């Protein structure tokens, strides 16, 4: 086992704990302005119907920031749910299975979400056009 390392009198984590802690904080800080922006966007699109929302997606910046917000949110969500499982599920097999399942769900949501955002930003024809229908 390697010697314990210290930074400003505080023990540096020997494995990956500190990295996870920092990632949680980094994603939280990034989500502060993005959440305010999200609230504003929700305000704009509320009651605006399909045309209003399409107009919003017509601005590439909106689509880009939404994709970034979705990905950071799901990254943050993955870490948060993992911590809950780590805290309460003690049997390694169950814990690993749940953590894996959560990761798969988050990646799927991100992939599907970004796919829809890209189509909307490009003004693609409504689905399932182009998928055999």
């Amino acid at each position, binding site marked *: 086992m390697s010697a314990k390392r210290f930074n400003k009198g505080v023990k540096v984590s020997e494995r990956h704990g500190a990295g996870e802690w920092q990632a949680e904080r980094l994603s939280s800080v990034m989500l502060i302005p993005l959440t305010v922006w999200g609230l504003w966007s*929700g305000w704009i699109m*509320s009651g605006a119907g*399909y045309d209003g929302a399409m107009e919003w997606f017509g601005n590439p910046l909106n689509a880009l920031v939404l994709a970034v917000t979705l990905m950071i949110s799901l990254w943050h969500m993955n870490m948060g749910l993992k911590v809950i499982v780590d805290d309460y599920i003690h049997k390694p097999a169950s814990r690993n299975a749940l953590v894996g399942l959560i990761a798969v769900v988050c990646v799927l949501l991100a992939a599907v979400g970004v796919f*829809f955002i890209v189509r909307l930003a490009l003004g*693609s024809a409504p689905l399932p056009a182009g998928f055999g229908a």
Partner: protein
Amino acid sequence: MSISPLPGDASNDPTEDQTGRFVRQPNGRVRPLSPHLQVWRWHVTMASSILVRVSGGALSVGAVFVVLWLMAMAFGPDAYATFTRLMGSPLGLFVWFGLTVAAGVHFANGTRNLIQDTGAGLTPKTADALSWAAIVLGLVIPVLFWVALFATGKVVL
């Protein structure tokens, strides 16, 4: 020199503690009740900490709703009309109201966490005040948001 009627140095007995509850021990000394799951008084710092986790869990469901919204948009006007009809129903509006409350609570209390992660605001009084502020702000912002949505007619019941 008088002999204390009780064993130990009574002058060292705390007069104030975190739980605010005291018990008279069998030897007559009044001591703070030790923290224990079943006797631990509900405290605002505890509540605000738990609220972060609970609202985070709720927001995970919210992420699925956001992706469903994107899906409805991507499937065109008819799918979107169905989606907005469902989400504009009383139950749908209740769900979205709940999600904005969860977002507000998670946002405000998460920001409190970030402040306290720097080592600031951790003395009992400041921590209490920060927790109350975060809980109240986290509730007031979404409520005002929905009041404005209804007041401007963007959302109707």
